[in-house]
C-alpha cells in the first residue's frame, strides 16, 4: 500500500512527543499505519469509533480527566462531526486536536472524494477553527507540537490537514 509509513511514523512520534494518551479514530486508507501504530502501543488508549462525532465526546471526557487526546479521521469524518464540534468543544471550550486526511484535494483520483474536499477548508474557516497543512516530514513534529499547544491554550479545536504530499508515496 503506497501510504507512507515513514510519514505516518513521524506523525505518530510527534503525537507521542506531545503527550497524547488517547486517540480516537475511524479508519480510512491514509490512516491505516497510524491506527496500527496506536493499536500496537500499550501506552495509547485507541478508541475505534463507529462514527466520528463520538470522538469529540471521547476527547472532551479525556480532557476533563486530564489526558491529552487527538482525533484521526477523513475530511468526511470531520464534516460528520460538526454538531459535536459546535455543541461540545466550541460551546464548552474544550481543546480538540484533529488530524484530518485531506481527501478530494489536488491529485485526488477518486471521484467520490472530490465533493467533500471542496468544502473542508471553508467549513473550518466558518467555524473559525485554526488549521494548517502537514506537507513535509521534517516539519511534522514541530507543527503537531504547536497545534497541541494552541488547542490547550485556546481551549479550542485545532485542525491539521494531512496532505497527499505527506501521506501518499506513488510516483506523481
Amino acid at each position, binding site marked *: 500500500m503506497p501510504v507512507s509509513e515513514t510519514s505516518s511514523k513521524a506523525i505518530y512520534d510527534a503525537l507521542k512527543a506531545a503527550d497524547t494518551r488517547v486517540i480516537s479514530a475511524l479508519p480510512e486508507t491514509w490512516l491505516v499505519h497510524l491506527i496500527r501504530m496506536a493499536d500496537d502501543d500499550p501506552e495509547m488508549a485507541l478508541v*475505534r469509533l*463507529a462514527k466520528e*462525532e*463520538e470522538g469529540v465526546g471521547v476527547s472532551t471526557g479525556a480532557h*476533563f480527566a486530564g*489526558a491529552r487526546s487527538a482525533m484521526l479521521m477523513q475530511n468526511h469524518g470531520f464534516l460528520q462531526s460538526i454538531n459535536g464540534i459546535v455543541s461540545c468543544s466550541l460551546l464548552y471550550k*474544550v481543546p480538540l486536536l484533529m488530524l484530518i486526511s485531506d481527501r478530494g484535494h489536488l491529485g485526488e483520483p477518486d471521484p467520490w472524494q472530490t465533493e467533500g474536499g471542496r468544502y473542508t477548508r471553508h467549513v473550518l474557516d466558518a467555524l473559525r477553527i485554526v488549521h494548517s497543512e502537514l506537507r513535509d516530514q521534517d516539519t511534522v513534529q514541530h507543527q503537531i507540537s504547536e497545534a497541541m499547544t494552541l488547542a490547550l491554550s485556546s481551549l479550542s479545536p485545532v485542525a491539521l490537514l494531512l496532505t497527499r504530499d505527506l501521506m501518499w508515496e506513488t510516483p506523481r
Partner: protein
Amino acid sequence: MKRIDCLGAIYDDLKECAVVTIMGAVAAELYSLGHRANFFYLEHAMGLASSVGLGIALAQPERRVVVIDGDGSVLMNLGGLTTLARYAPGNLTHIVFDNESLLSVGGFPTATSTGSDLSAIARGAGIASTGTYTTVEDFASATRSAIASSEMNNLVAKVEAVGPAGFHMDLELLENRFEFARALRPESS
C-alpha cells in the same frame, strides 16, 4: 416510576463518581436534588454523553464514572453503544432513563414508544450486562451493584414522561465545565 424518584434513590451513591448527564429534564432534576462539583450536565451535543463518559473512564481507570442518558439521546448515537461495548471500561455505568418521549422539546414519542428496546439494542451491541427496570427499588439496587462492580453495566429505567416545571439551573455552562474538570484532578479526589 418517576425519574426524579430514581435519581433521589441513587443520589448518595453518586457522591464519589464522575457523573455526566444529558440536557433537559435529567439535568434539571439531578441539579434540583443538589448540585455537586462532580456532576457535569452536557447541555447540548445530544448523543455524546456516553462518549464523554467513555473518555473519562479510559483516562482515569480508577474513577467510577456514571453516565445518565435518555432514550432520545441514545437513539441519536446508537453506534456509540457498540463503541462502549468494544472497550467496556469496568469503571463505567451507563444509565438510560427511557420515558419513550422527547419530553424537553414537546413530548413527541420516540421509537421506544413503538417497540424499540434499548436494553436489547445494548445487548445486541455487545454490552454483556444490561437490564430494564420498572421499580425504583430494583433500579436503585441494580445501580448500586453496577457502580461497585468491575464490569461495565447498562441500565434502562422505564420512567413516566413527566419532568420539572422548568429547566433553569443557576449554573453557567462554562462554570460547570471548569468546576467539573477541577473536581476530576487527581489531587482533589
